[in-house]
């Protein structure tokens, strides 16, 4: 897999520093699972975090801190994180941590109708915070036309789309800001499945999509 479109370096650094909202962190984590180059940038940023902690001026702990910690480690073990079951056989299409957010790999998902043949699954939907969802766009069809008030990042998981003359395939991330009125179109041959993160509600342009917007809550 050759990835041509990566998230901005600022996003990677803020992910490493622990300063991104959950929806954006999910997209970065999923991208770096598929992109060793960006994973190495995140590891470098984390190494800087480690060096900064190493260099921090020590602040005295309370007198009984060590005893208190040793008492706690005796009591309970670290719970293992819950992971989505692995599909048997083939390598999964959705990498972790996305697969656990979705609840399964692609073949077990419960898609909701979005109109014009498109489907979606909300994954992170905290009020007032960036949202993340899976999108499924039928092969050869456009994503419902939209602009948006804020940043939008779209990562391709399967299939591909073309937008503004550029092609986005598995692992690629398209970054669109508020000024961009864009029109991604899925390429023929295979439905295009994406992870879409927006930090403001989308403003759909088509009359049907605009009417539906208050009801589908995206």
């Amino acid at each position, binding site marked *: 897999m050759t990835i041509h479109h990566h998230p901005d370096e*600022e996003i990677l650094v803020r992910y490493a520093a*622990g300063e991104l909202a959950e929806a954006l962190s999910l997209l970065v*984590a999923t991208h770096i699972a598929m992109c060793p180059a960006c994973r190495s940038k995140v590891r470098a940023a984390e190494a800087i975090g480690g060096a900064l902690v190493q260099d*921090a001026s020590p602040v005295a702990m309370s007198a009984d801190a060590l005893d208190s*910690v040793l008492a706690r480690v005796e009591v309970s073990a670290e719970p293992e994180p819950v992971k989505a079951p692995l599909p048997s056989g083939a*390598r999964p299409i*959705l990498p972790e941590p996305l697969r656990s957010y979705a609840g399964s790999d692609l073949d077990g998902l419960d898609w909701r109708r979005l109109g014009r043949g498109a489907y979606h699954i909300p994954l992170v939907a905290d009020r007032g915070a960036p949202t993340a969802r899976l999108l499924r766009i039928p092969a050869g069809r456009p994503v419902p036309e939209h602009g948006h008030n804020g940043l939008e990042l779209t990562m391709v998981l399967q299939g591909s789309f073309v937008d503004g003359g550029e092609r986005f395939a598995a692992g690629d991330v398209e970054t669109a800001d508020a000024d961009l009125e864009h029109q991604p179109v899925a390429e023929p041959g295979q439905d295009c499945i994406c992870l879409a993160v927006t930090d403001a509600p989308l403003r759909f342009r088509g009359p049907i999509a605009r009417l539906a917007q208050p009801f589908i809550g995206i």
Partner: protein
Amino acid sequence: MLLVSVADRDRDAFAALFAHFAPRVKSYMLRLGSDDSQAEELAQEALVSVWRKADRYDPSRAAASTWIFTIARNLRIDAYRRRNHPEPDPDDPALVPEAPPSADAVVERKQDAERIRAALEELPEEQREVVRLSFFDDKTHTEISEALDIPLGTVKSRIRLAFGRIRNLLEDEA
């Protein structure tokens, strides 16, 4: 390696590790806005996690300080935002692997922490300041550009230079 002994449940090694890192993790938490009792509690929790997860620490992948930083970072996110820090799963069959580190790299890795600190110290102060602000003050690049009264493009290029340098250092060995 202290952490390797901690993985073998060596309490003396853990006490030494605690004496070094707990006060630094507390300092990191204070710097990011915790009050003293929150910072103390988070530092204790971080060291509890270090003890419990020590057997999962892989010295060929990260320096001890880097690994402890990521534990402290994730605890802080859990505590303040009641949410997770999503991360790839190194055992996931869908993870696209990098080339495995060479035997030389594993030997070299121990010195990463020292070399990264040295490299940070060699950076021009203007680059170091931007790195510190983006890690320790929860600031976006736009906010840094306003706080320092410099153009956004300058913030981005300083970050890019600083991180490029650290990355080269890590990749030279791999």
